[in-house]
């Protein structure tokens, strides 16, 4: 088993309003371990605290209380130097929802170079990193294009390249596919999958799309600032009622399996998070009942 990369214990965060008053806690005691190279989807309805959680991992926000250890470095309970914060942000990159809000330069390759340049990466190395990052997201042909002329999916891939160029250990995607069309979403999801499987980058994908969450190794569900569920997609999607009670749902295939079971058709199998395995489960049941019938006929 690989090492734990992110460890949180009783992590809390409260926003303060304009008068400095502390509001209802946005995060209320999250304890979770994320291993190196894991692909974790984070689910929760709007306002559940999942984006706050992501912002703590990148130190955009500072925890109010609790423990946060990333890459073996404890980040809570003491003053952090600027270098430490910078180092952490280099290791834990973030890709946001709106592609137009995170591109800063007028030429694609300059945009990708923005991060490493600010880290002080020297020239031949910088060139190599930009080219490698762009080819990793399959956008090398667009190096000299203007970002604003690209499609939404292409812009998001440029934003991802900008993060990869800093050679992070972990990337957090905060609803990075929400504003994209189906083909743009596919491009970005394939890129995420590739970064995780081939480059071993730890991935946290915050999403509202259940089909997207089903692609992860593991799903954590946050509700009302607390960790509600933690498990594989197959495990999570068996808890349909609980998910619905917190404003979430299960993928259509999983919903179908649930409905069939409620109707007394006892299809067997636990892999209910993707189309292929659901089809198998149903076909198997069909074959069994049919066989049974044929035996009776004989």
């Amino acid at each position, binding site marked *: 088993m690989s090492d734990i990369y992110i460890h949180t214990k009783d992590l809390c965060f409260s926003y303060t309003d304009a008068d400095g008053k502390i509001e209802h806690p946005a995060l209320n005691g999250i304890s979770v371990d994320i291993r190196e190279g894991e692909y974790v989807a984070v689910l*929760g*309805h*709007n*306002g559940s605290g999942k984006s706050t959680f992501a912002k703590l991992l990148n130190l955009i926000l500072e925890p109010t209380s609790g423990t946060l250890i990333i890459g073996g470095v404890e980040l809570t309970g003491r003053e952090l130097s600027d270098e430490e914060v910078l180092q952490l942000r280099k290791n834990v990159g973030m890709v946001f*929802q709106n592609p137009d809000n995170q591109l800063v330069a007028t030429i694609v390759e300059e945009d990708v170079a923005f991060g490493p340049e600010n880290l002080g990466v020297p020239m031949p190395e910088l060139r190599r990193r930009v080219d490698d990052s762009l080819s990793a997201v399959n956008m090398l042909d667009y190096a000299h294009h203007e970002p604003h002329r690209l*499609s*939404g999916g292409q812009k998001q891939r440029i934003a991802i390249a900008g993060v990869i160029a800093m050679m992070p250990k972990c990337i957090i995607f905060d*609803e990075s596919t*929400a*504003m994209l*069309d*189906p*083909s*743009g979403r596919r491009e970005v999801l394939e890129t995420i999958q590739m970064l995780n499987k081939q480059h071993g980058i730890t991935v946290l994908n915050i999403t*509202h799309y*259940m*089909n997207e969450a089903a692609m992860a190794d593991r799903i954590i569900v946050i509700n009302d600032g607390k960790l509600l569920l933690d498990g594989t997609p197959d495990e999570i999607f068996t808890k349909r009622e609980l998910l619905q009670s917190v*404003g*979430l*749902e299960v*993928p*259509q*295939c999983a*919903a*179908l399996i649930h*409905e*069939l079971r409620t*109707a*007394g*058709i006892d*299809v067997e199998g636990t892999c209910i998070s993707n*189309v*292929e395995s*659901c*089809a198998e489960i*149903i*076909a198997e*049941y*069909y074959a069994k*009942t*049919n066989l*049974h*019938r044929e035996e*009776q006929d004989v």
Partner: protein
Amino acid sequence: MYKIYLEHVSYIYGQGTPFEKKALDDVSLGIREGCMTGIIGHTGSGKSTMMQLLNGLATPTEGRVLLDGYDINSRPEDLLEEWKRLPEYKNLSKGAAKKAIKREVLRRKRELCFRVGLVMQYPEYQLFEETVFKDIAYGPQNMGLSEEEISKRVREAARFTGIEEELLDKSPFDLSGGQKRRVALAGVIAMRPEVLVLDEPAAGLDPRGRDYIFEGISHYQKTTGSTVLIVSHSMEDMARYCDDMVVMAEGEAKLHGSCKEVFSKVSTLSEVGLDIPQITQLMTLLRKKGLAVAEDIYTVEDAVLALRKLLQKGKGES
């Protein structure tokens, strides 16, 4: 009866420049009155351009857009022809007639904005008033309605979209994303448009927020009998809420008909780069595995019905 009819409509961006681009190419299409029609198509297929043509934000390069049978972009010269037939016209001097026609063209344009309500993408970014009430009231106010009528309209629109009474006095900026979206929708509904056009109304919302929005739209449509057009990427939502569907690709309306008809042409759909609902994919896989399930299943409910029959039949006869 068609509420809206597009007659050989073409639209070209930047005509005569090096960036010339044909966004719509000879589209002829009728939208049924009182129905919910979904428009799908990937980015650049021309669907957003088509939306803008419906309430006069853009004028077709060629062809006509008819609302209740009348061209929505009546030009001064068409009006002149129309008016020449009226007896009153003879009493007008040429200058006065010109002015009157100009006024009439503007009046019709303005009226069109109220008759065809457009809800843009991420409409919550357009909220600007101090209170939710005032924001919803902005449209009706511009229609020149009385205070009493405005108040009635605001409350009615709030009910349609599920905005609680106590939220009306709050600042729209203190609301959650899903609530803001519903306030923006209420602002358009408060004008009681005969045609409601929405661009990606549920984009970026969580499942519950999405259901609220669609239920609000559907409630308004069923109660008032208005015609609704929804542009969306989500085939799953379209299947659940729409009566008819139009598939746009390369500036053309490639498919048009009831949801059942459109979904049955699944192969064409994947060619134009769209996502087929997961449940329909599952049914296709099952058919390949030899299960006799119909092709036109696109909601979980229909799938349950079909499979129950099939799977229980085996049991029942044994």
